[in-house]
């Protein structure tokens, strides 16, 4: 999914760069509400996890391969604003240290995975969370759905961009169809992994899952004082 240099025309790459910069700028402001000093390492861990998962490619259909995008997972764990920042960092480090994704395509990649992937995943998660029973355990299936939808959504946006501003004239419907088709399969893998990780974390540290906070009752804390 990491778009390399040269896939979009130079003006289109610059345009997505501007969109990405604006999105990241908004996220920098929005993230202040999601993170405090104690949870900021969590953003780093989520980034590390997404980073490690993105380095592992698994084969999909017809000789192509896919990997976890992690946008929905990150959004559920640390909130969508911070998740956008995490994905931005992951993509930048991959482009600069691992040559994965072109540096001129960084804006495109941030738009696809850090904005579309994160926010579509988050939107789907919130919608499903609303209809499920209000228990912490509901976070995992909701996150799965978020993961499932986020991948083909990002792929569809890529195909549209390529169709409109790519360096090769292509029939839009064919490219969109092919990309979405392949990425629905990848989305299934994304759904399974997202659900598993979220359910493991919710089971023991529900306080670490941003998206599960509305589902929590405050734990009873003993507060009675004992005479010395």
């Amino acid at each position, binding site marked *: 999914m990491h778009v390399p240099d040269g896939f979009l025309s130079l003006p289109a790459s610059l345009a997505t760069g501007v969109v990405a910069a604006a999105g990241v700028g908004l996220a920098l402001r929005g993230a202040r509400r999601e993170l405090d000093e104690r949870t900021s390492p969590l953003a780093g861990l989520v980034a590390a996890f997404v980073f490690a998962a993105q380095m592992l490619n698994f084969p999909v259909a017809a000789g192509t391969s896919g990997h976890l995008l992690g946008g929905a997972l990150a959004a559920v764990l640390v909130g969508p604003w911070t998740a956008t920042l995490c994905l931005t960092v992951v993509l930048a480090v991959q482009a600069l240290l691992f040559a994965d994704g072109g540096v001129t395509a960084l804006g495109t990649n941030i738009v696809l995975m850090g904005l579309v992937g994160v926010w579509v995943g988050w939107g789907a998660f919130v919608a499903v969370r609303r209809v499920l029973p209000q228990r912490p355990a509901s976070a995992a299936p909701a996150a799965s759905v978020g993961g499932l939808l986020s991948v083909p959504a990002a792929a569809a946006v890529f195909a549209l961009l390529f169709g409109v501003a790519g360096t090769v004239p292509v029939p839009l419907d064919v490219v969109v169809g092919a990309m979405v088709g392949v990425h629905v399969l990848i989305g299934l893998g994304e759904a399974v992994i997202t659900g598993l990780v979220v359910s493991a974390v919710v089971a*023991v*540290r*529900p*306080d670490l899952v941003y998206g599960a906070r509305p589902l929590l009752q405050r*734990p*009873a*804390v*003993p*507060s*009675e*004082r*004992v005479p*010395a």
Partner: protein
Amino acid sequence: MTGPILDVRGLTFAYPDGRPVLAGVDLRVAAGERVALLGPNGAGKTTLLLQLNGILRPASGTVTVAGLPVTPRNLREVRRLVGVVFQDPDDQLFMPTVRDDVAFGPANLGVRGAKLDRAVADALAAVGMAEAAARPPHHLSLGERRRVALATVLAMRPALLVLDEPTSNLDPVARRELAEILTGLDVAVLMVTHDLPYALQLCERSAILSGGRIVADGPTGALLADASLLAAHRLELPFGFDPAFGRR
């Protein structure tokens, strides 16, 4: 200083999973005093220590260090005063080399240059690890890591030294040397240990934490002589220990 260096009052705490761990702890340590904290596994000893420099925050109650309440505002000053050696050295060591790790704390306090080098060398020499200075901490044996962890805190010269089972994994000579280091330092010490003879050797006073409360607090010799108190809290004198030592 006239007040106690450490003053814990009515401290309660539960982990995020909701299980209450501390249910009203009261404990005072005077400047320069050495106190042993005893108690069964899972009593909450480590949990209590982590409150003393604000790593965990109490649900209710207060912790005061040298007159300063442990609140986010005072954390910097409190952490300068209180040096905690964690139970697991892997939680403590994170730099690429032993030298860097020991230098980390004093450098954050503003120590620089030759003074920093000397502080690091002294602390490593005190724990017998001077030769390992250039090695990565995660390649040391567990006992070696424990010594380096101690050195990282000694290098900061805290006013209250908090030690969580400092002798575990140390060889017998290192254990005695640690006792000599501690008696040679002019700091208050609060030490968790399961080694009752060691507590008797080093600390004039002991407190027993059990069921989330301090259930006994007094001269170590007297506590260790009270067999029924010990038995009620999963404590007992070890095989071959001669209780006559306690009555010297």
